[in-house]
């Protein structure tokens, strides 16, 4: 009895003293192994009388179970310690930088165009596109700007060298020729916007030889000036994402519209370098508009006695500058990495009406 208890405590002491898996295995072999002390004890069972066995059996088995359990427990303990030691050796300095990845950006022109498209899609306008190199006829003549019309000096035109077939074309001075193409190719009702690059021989702090416009065109029965006003107002309110916007239309002149009007937006520029909309005493020019000139409709094969239409056009670059507080148009086309990163937009910031056009 005492012998067994003494043996057990001796073995358990050996187990807990085992410093690694090998030592523990040696203890296991020395106890539970074929020639082990516990195995030897168990082997004596067969020689015992039934009465002795009744007494000794549970004691022997108890010893075996206790040793088995203790070895398993110690094994787990050692494995845990070994893992801890390994992990400790695997430590990495988490403050070191990850491999650098460049953050891509979307140019403000593209972003603002997506915003504009989102708004006009909601109003039922499609997006029409046309070439940058354009027929003189589409850029001017069909738009009621005959050669030597005084209006042509409002737009200093880039001319492309004569082609092999003897024709010569222009870089479009506005995106209105896209409207001409739309009217020539589709029957009313027409509801489109025409965004794109435009070109004029002009370069200073506020002008770039290339810039961007977006124009809107509606041709249908019964279209009048009130529809034009509504559309411009709805668009501006949605685009600038401010409710207190105040617009002003004033009569103007364009050869392709009659009546013609220009749009201004109320703003406050009393703090240098800052523009606040909807308040203040200044007016900021947004763009031109008007009812499509009868001659333009007729030039494009639309019966002006049945249909009327309106058009308006804004500078996309200018809209971007106004909305996002960018002071100078020249930065738009210089591709200065610092500028691109500063004014650019996140690739996944896709403007939607449901989520808001901007952050």
């Amino acid at each position, binding site marked *: 009895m005492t012998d067994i208890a003494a043996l057990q405590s001796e073995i358990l002491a050996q187990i807990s003293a085992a410093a690694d898996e090998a030592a523990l295995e040696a203890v296991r072999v020395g106890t539970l192994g074929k020639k082990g002390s516990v195995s030897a004890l168990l082997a004596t069972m067969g020689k015992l009388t039934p009465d002795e066995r009744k007494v000794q059996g549970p004691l022997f088995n108890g010893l075996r179970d206790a040793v088995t359990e203790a070895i398993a427990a110690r094994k787990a303990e050692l494995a845990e310690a070994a893992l801890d030691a390994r992990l400790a050796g695997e430590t990495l300095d988490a403050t070191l930088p990850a491999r650098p990845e460049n953050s891509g950006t979307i140019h403000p022109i593209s972003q603002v165009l997506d915003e504009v498209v989102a708004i006009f899609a909601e109003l*039922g306008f499609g997006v029409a596109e046309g070439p940058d190199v354009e027929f003189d006829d589409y850029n001017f003549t069909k738009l009621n700007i005959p050669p030597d019309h*005084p209006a042509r000096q409002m737009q200093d035109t880039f001319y492309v060298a004569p082609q092999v077939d003897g024709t010569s074309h222009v870089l479009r001075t506005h995106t209105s020729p896209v409207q001409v193409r739309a009217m020539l190719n589709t029957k009313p009702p027409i509801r489109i916007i025409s965004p794109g690059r435009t070109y004029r021989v002009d370069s200073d702090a506020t002008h770039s030889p290339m810039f961007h416009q977006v124009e809107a065109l509606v041709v249908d029965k019964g279209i009048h000036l009130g529809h034009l006003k509504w559309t411009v107002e709805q668009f501006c309110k949605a685009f600038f994402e401010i409710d207190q916007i105040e617009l002003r239309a004033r009569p103007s002149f364009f050869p392709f519209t009659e009546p013609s009007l220009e749009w201004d937006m109320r703003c406050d520029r009393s703090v240098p370098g800052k523009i606040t909309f909807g308040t203040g005493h200044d007016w900021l020019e947004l763009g031109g508009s008007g009812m499509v000139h009868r001659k333009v409709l007729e030039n494009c094969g639309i019966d002006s006695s049945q249909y009327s239409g309106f058009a308006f056009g804004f500078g996309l670059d200018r809209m971007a500058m106004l909305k996002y507080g960018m002071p100078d148009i020249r930065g738009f086309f210089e591709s200065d990495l610092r500028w691109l990163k500063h004014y650019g937009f996140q690739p996944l910031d896709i403007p939607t009406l449901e989520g808001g056009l901007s952050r």
Partner: protein
Amino acid sequence: MKFTLSWLKEHLDTEASAAEIAARLTAIGLEVESITDPGAGLKDFIVGEVVTAEKHPNADKLRLCKVSDGKDSLQIVCGAPNARAGIKVVLARPGTVIPASGDVLKLGTIRGVESRGMMCSARELLLGEDHNGIIELKAGARVGAPVVAALVEAGLLADDPLFDVAITPNRGDAASVFGIARDLAASGLGTLKTDKVQPVAGTFPSPKTITLDFTPENKDACPVFAGRLIRGVKNGPAPQWVQDRLKSVGMKSISALVDATNLIAQDRGRPLHVFDADRLSGNLQARMARDGEPVAALDEKTYVLDAETIVIADDSHARGIAGIMGGMDSGSFADTKNVFLESAWFDPARIARAGRKLSIVSDARYRFERGVDPQFVLPGLELCTRLILEWCGGEASDVVIAGALPPAHKPIAFDPALVQSFGGIVVPREKIIGTLQELGFVVEDHGVLQVVPPSWRHDVDGPADLVEEVVRIYGLADVPSVPLERGNAVAAPVLSKAQRRTRTARRAIAARGFNECVTFSFIAREQAKLFGGGDDARQLSNPIASDLDALRPSILPSLLAAGARNAARGFANLQLFEIGAAFDSGMPEAQKTVAAALRTGHAERHWKKGGEGTELFAVKADLLATLEAITGAPMSAPVTQGGPAWYHPGRSGTIAMGPKVIAQFGELHPKVLAAFGLKVPAAGFEIFLDAIPEPKSKGKAKPLFAPSAFQAIERDFAFVVDAKLAAGEIVKAVKLADRALIDSVSVFDVYEGKGVPDGKKSVAVAVRIQPRDATLTEAEIEALAQKIVAGVVKLGATLRS
């Protein structure tokens, strides 16, 4: 177009303030660009009266005044020697901005005494240099009233705001003070003062004759030309009020004769010209210039004219560019005694063309190209005759006229209902008629109106123009906004598949770390040549700069130039892209939409070495990811070795779908890099978005998900092949072994060197075999492996043992 309020009031009886007039001008389409109101900064100042003035208890030179502001008596400390009881002064109260300093006046304590305002000197108000004392207003000034009127009365302020109005190209009639007054009167802001021009009777026949010498096709260049001789004049300075008036709008006073014509041009929109009759040889004629004919103009430059320019000539040579600028040697001089006064009408289009071509900006051109009133040719001549006789003396001849005044405009049939149906606003019929009449239109009411535009409105020729006239005068602001109906409750999609693809490409490329650029569509011809362009058909005739003279054949040169600029600023490791136009010729249909991206420089240094730089496979990965984003599926079209000349000949690739190249990529050719001054390597790709076929519409439903029930097997093969054999060929051959069973083939090792013969390489591929109907037996797998090996062996390969 500039004018002062007082000048305007010569023609318009109105009580309106300058601000009201400015607002109305803009509202009716005469946009006020600026209004300079000398009294604008003084609106917060009022008239005060000094009630008492005593010595300051603590200072000898200061006075302690009680000043009335009309309601209260304010205690003000003042240092001016003339501050004394009884005088009327300019009073600033706390909160007022003092113009000279720009400071806001505050309540102050001066030498222990509170001061509740300030009495101002002329200098403090920027009204002069006087700072010896405070301004003393006239005794009649009303205490408490705004001070501007009192300052005007005291002669300290010219209450004459200067307007600068932008005149649109169609409104030649508004390029005169009288014309502006007429529009304002029509809008109800006052009454137009009309005085009929009284002709001056000639006392002798004009010794000079005038003729119109035009071929029939140029007859409309100058339909009417009038003039007269005035003899015995004495040129000198114009009267002071004329000089002041011209100066008030920024014009120079030159001499009585010139000022007379300038005054009438500005006042009535009628340009005139004065010739020194003694310096002319023979008679005058209007004609087209001879091609290459020189004219020495007033601006001391000699212009060489073409046959489309109108000139006024004498029997000897051209004496002036008609409607644009007079001649150097035949104008008026200090000793001029006999003048010939010219008044003519020139075709606006020809004037605009000539002015633009010669780059001459002049007041005459400004008016003629906008269209002047042909019916005012003679009244203008008479008015100017009067001024010359009055200022310079002399005697006028009879008027001589060549040609004839053009007939009145044709009537326009106008249904007033159009104002509502087209203009969107309800205006009473009588108001429509009244407005048009106020503007000078002759209206006959036969149900439908018959409207004859006045002679000065050449821009009105249809009903829409009449709607515009009514709406602009009645008030554009009053046109109610009316919603555009939209058919569907939920907005339908509007983008075309191509437009969506462009958008997707943009954000897919940006998401891979590229910064989007927008660059000019024109580049330097030398650079264009490196990219297959730079031919004559893609040249601009009038480039803005010599290095921006060619339509770009590719976007890469734009990005390379941007890369070089950034590198010069110390940013050499870049990822730039642009989606835009590239041009195959100078024809409108020769434009393609290209998405191009460029990596320059090296992989950023990192403590854990390695990483992608600007090598071929970095841009290949960018390209394939972008194509997958665009088409919605991994790119199935094969990559072939090589690309166009601007890429490294051995490090470039092309993807084509059938005959159409949809993309090319590679490292840039070192010569190209050198041409752009780029000292770091660069690699890029170009995707021709228009060339990618639109996906066939297969409905919205995706094919049924049907995964194989049998486990896939992976087998590796290593082949020794000719070093020049493209890996793509091996992959293709492996796939051909069994298109149904072979799911994918990937190259996982390429090795040249020890163990592989010279001129050979070892290429290892992993083949994933996906059984479809049943698990493959060992024998079947072996058979397939044999077939794979056999296929590749045909390429000259041996299986590596």
